[in-house]
């Protein structure tokens, strides 16, 4: 069921920048925060267990959840398919994190960031996304860099 967007009523966190697509700005901000997440995860995994890290990581994100609820004026989407995908995604993300923290125990830079290769394969098969030449080269270089950074 389609209903009018809540999105239009919500304030975007970043302004429009001419010549710089908004999706790219958001992606770079994601990269920034995950860089800090990886750094803190590395420090934390040296001190406590993977399960302990996961418990406090889950708790730590709860204020953000509250912020999102407020931004939505308490009108959280209940679209069945969207919600099912999101919850499943959370379960897979949390399981992946547990394995990530456990891998961090044994190796300084685990190769877990190779996961985009699987995502891209699934996006091509399931979502029928088309991949450009520059992007293929970028993906190959990204995988090579991740492997090198993990050595």
């Amino acid at each position, binding site marked *: 069921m389609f209903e009018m967007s809540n999105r239009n009523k919500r304030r975007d966190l970043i302004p429009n920048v001419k010549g710089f697509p908004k999706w790219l700005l958001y992606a770079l901000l994601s990269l920034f925060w995950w860089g800090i997440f990886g750094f803190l995860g590395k420090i934390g995994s040296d001190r406590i267990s993977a399960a302990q890290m996961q418990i406090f990581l889950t708790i730590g994100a709860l204020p953000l959840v509250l912020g999102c609820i407020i931004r939505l004026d308490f009108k959280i989407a209940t679209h069945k398919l969207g919600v099912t995908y999101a919850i499943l995604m959370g379960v897979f993300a*949390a399981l992946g994190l547990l394995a*990530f923290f456990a891998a961090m125990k044994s190796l300084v830079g685990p190769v877990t960031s190779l*996961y985009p290769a699987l995502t891209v394969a699934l996006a091509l098969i399931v979502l029928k996304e088309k991949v450009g030449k520059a992007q293929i080269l970028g993906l190959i270089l990204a995988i090579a860099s991740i492997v090198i950074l993990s050595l």
Partner: protein
Amino acid sequence: MAEWVTFSIAAVVCWGIMGLLQKLTTNYISADSVLIWDRVGYLVLLPWLLGTSHLNNMGPGDILIGTLDGIANGLGAWFLYASLENGAKASVAVPLTALYPLLTVLLAVLFLGEKPRPLQWLGIALAVVAGVLMSREAPAAKHVDEKL
């Protein structure tokens, strides 16, 4: 097989599937709603984690690091969902944001005094070039309206 290899493969498979689900869910609901519902998925595992862990050996510093890590992880996730919501392809945004170990390594150099080997500097340079190449790709579509 070494333990870290098993854990790494498990993480790659889980996060690979997660990347696809990220795009699928942002086709239907907004970044804010996705963050709310995906954390429900995290909470599903919490009783099991609490039942199998001892928390009495943790100090305030450990708790602070774990909690701050959760905030950074949540912010990173929200911005990725916003990127996908604003039309980014999964096959572009997911590999681009997965370059975050680049920043992790730089932070480790700055704050932990780690010194990358020449090969790792090559990895950093490749990551920058890869990021530029992947970000040249046009987005897939306009953002989606929230479906309640």
